[in-house]
């Protein structure tokens, strides 16, 4: 089922929210691994999901909750380390998890999300729900043992899981060709007997279409799909990490920024569909949303020592005398 106009605009909105969220961070709080350049892959995948479907993500976490439709204020406040943050300021930039929208974990341990997403799929299957679980991961994460182990388990048990690779070509400074014996990630799917699909990650609608197909397979009980979305990260791996070597050329980066920006590309598509005024309204709206989120974050209080103790256990074990006060 292709996207209707409202959904197309919603997808554009989410892409733009990711972009402006990240740009606000660069301006106000230079922390984290940014998703600029990868918005089409993220929003395209998320638009194929229901609100109650599960998502796991990575250290590059900001895009995933935004793509899934989460409220922006608590995400921004989290990155500012505030108590009103979605994780009370305890999780921070690598862990923006909004469980109201089925986001159960952004794992900063590369490869950590594979088992968790697979387990969410198992849970849906055992409970007889028709939820699916979508696992975002990077090209580098494919080399963690958990990829192979978890995809295989998903396949054996025909779990409703979509393994979705944001292949941006690099893991920190390491290109796919230098770390993968065989660089086509989708091709690994065959080893587990599941379909592997490649899609242009800068084409949000194409991503949406292949993800939707995978979601339908999963809901129908036919098991997992491995999707490889070819995308690109416009900025440095993390804006906190000094990278002392040139591992990709300026030309390559400029090419992607100029020719392969998923937002520019999708904006042009929507324009050909006569949606310019709607787009412009969204652009104004998103700018406001982000500005308000920054204000909200700045004005919010810091978490307290007791929040740490209270967040440890469901039935809190009380702080030993003195330690609560550190």
């Amino acid at each position, binding site marked *: 089922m292709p996207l209707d106009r409202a959904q197309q605009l919603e997808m554009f909105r989410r892409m733009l929210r990711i972009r402006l969220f990240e740009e606000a961070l660069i301006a106000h709080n230079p922390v984290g691994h940014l998703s600029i350049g990868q918005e089409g892959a993220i929003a395209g995948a998320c638009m194929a999901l229901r609100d109650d479907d*599960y998502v*796991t993500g990575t250290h590059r976490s900001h895009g995933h909750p935004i793509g899934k439709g989460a409220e922006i204020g608590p995400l921004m406040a989290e990155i500012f380390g505030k108590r009103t*943050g*979605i*994780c*009370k*300021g*305890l*999780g921070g930039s690598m*862990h923006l*998890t*909004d*469980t109201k929208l089925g986001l*159960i*974990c952004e*794992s900063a*341990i590369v490869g*950590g999300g*594979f*088992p*968790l*997403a*697979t*387990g*969410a*799929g*198992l*849970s*849906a*299957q*055992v*409970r007889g729900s028709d939820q699916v*679980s979508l696992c975002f991961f990077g090209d580098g994460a494919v080399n963690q*043992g*958990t990829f192979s*182990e*978890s995809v*295989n*388990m998903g396949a*054996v*048990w025909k779990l409703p899981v979509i393994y979705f690779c944001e292949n941006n070509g690099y893991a920190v400074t390491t290109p796919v060709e230098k770390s993968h014996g065989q660089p086509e990630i989708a091709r690994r799917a065959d080893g587990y007997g599941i379909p592997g699909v490649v899609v242009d990650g800068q084409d949000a609608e194409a991503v949406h279409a292949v993800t939707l197909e995978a979601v339908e397979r999963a809901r129908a009980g036919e098991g997992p799909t491995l999707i490889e979305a070819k995308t690109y990260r416009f900025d440095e791996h993390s804006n906190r990490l000094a990278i002392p070597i040139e591992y990709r050329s300026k030309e390559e980066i400029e090419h992607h920024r100029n020719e392969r920006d998923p937002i520019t590309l999708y904006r042009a598509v929507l324009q050909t569909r006569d949606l310019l005024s709607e787009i412009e309204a969204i652009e104004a709206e998103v700018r406001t949303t982000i500005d308000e989120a920054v204000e909200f974050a700045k004005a919010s209080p810091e978490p307290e020592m007791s*929040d*740490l103790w*209270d*967040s*440890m*256990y*469901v*039935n809190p*074990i009380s702080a030993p005398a003195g330690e609560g006060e550190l």
Partner: protein
Amino acid sequence: MTMRNATQKLSYLQAIVEAQREEMRRDERVILMGEDIAVYGAQSLFDEFDNKRLRNTPISENSFVGVGVGAALTGLRPIVDLTIASFCYLASDQIINQAAKLRFMTGAQLAVPLVVRTSTFYNNRTAAQHADRPYPLFMNTPGLKVLAPSTASDAKGLLKAAIRDDDPVVIFEDINLWGKKEEVPTDEDFLVPIGKAAVRREGGDVTIVSIAGCLPHALSAADALAKDGVEAEVIDLRTIVPLDKETILTSVAKTGRLIVADNSHKVGSVASEIAAVVSEEGFESLKRPIQRVAAPQVHVPYNAALEKRLFVSKDRIIDAVRAIT
């Protein structure tokens, strides 16, 4: 309907199976996952539950523990059997980095009602890669609860408590106790509280804190010592995290002497932690040096006679007591 005080004679291993059976009956969110689970005691569960809830997993420890975590986050209450304790190292990433941390990292948006079971296979001629007793492995990580039952009743009651607990729990079962039978309560709501040590024998002269399979040795040492007029108080630790400091400190306040019996290697053991706590918080009552009776810093050999000498015995406990009384 079972009677409140009814009991049934069960071995430690049978008690573990019964605990799982009762909790799986009681709560359909409880599932059991692991390698060849029928081989490790669960075969009778297959008569009652189907493949949906009893999952034979591929040999993928880190991932199937993580699958348990993911399922726990999303409405199930999985029991994951890591069979042999040296396989814990393969899954320590998912246990420490995910199970223990996820609730905290999400600002308490989530809970992880997961149980990880694993057995210590020492004294079984399996050599160094299978014979670990890594009780301290998860002790340094906040967010987990860690158990080590020593009797059939506790094996049942603690496992049931763990399954009902909303936080992640790791439970070390001791194969040297598998065959030990006793009368075990049949009440479906029989639970042993997490975090409470048990005083197995009272005495005023020396405190022996015992972990897991050390208990029978501690009790027979105490019997032998009593013949010489030394009355030992034997505390069965049962829960490693959170530590029941109160029971230990109360006993040491009375006896002034502490022995800790632990089949882990001595360095960095649970015994070390207990010694540290008492040397901090019970120092004023201590009359003599603390003694850890534990395995020395060598690996477990295949040769059975040598293997046995590494572990805690009645005689080693008696010697330790003699050294401080």
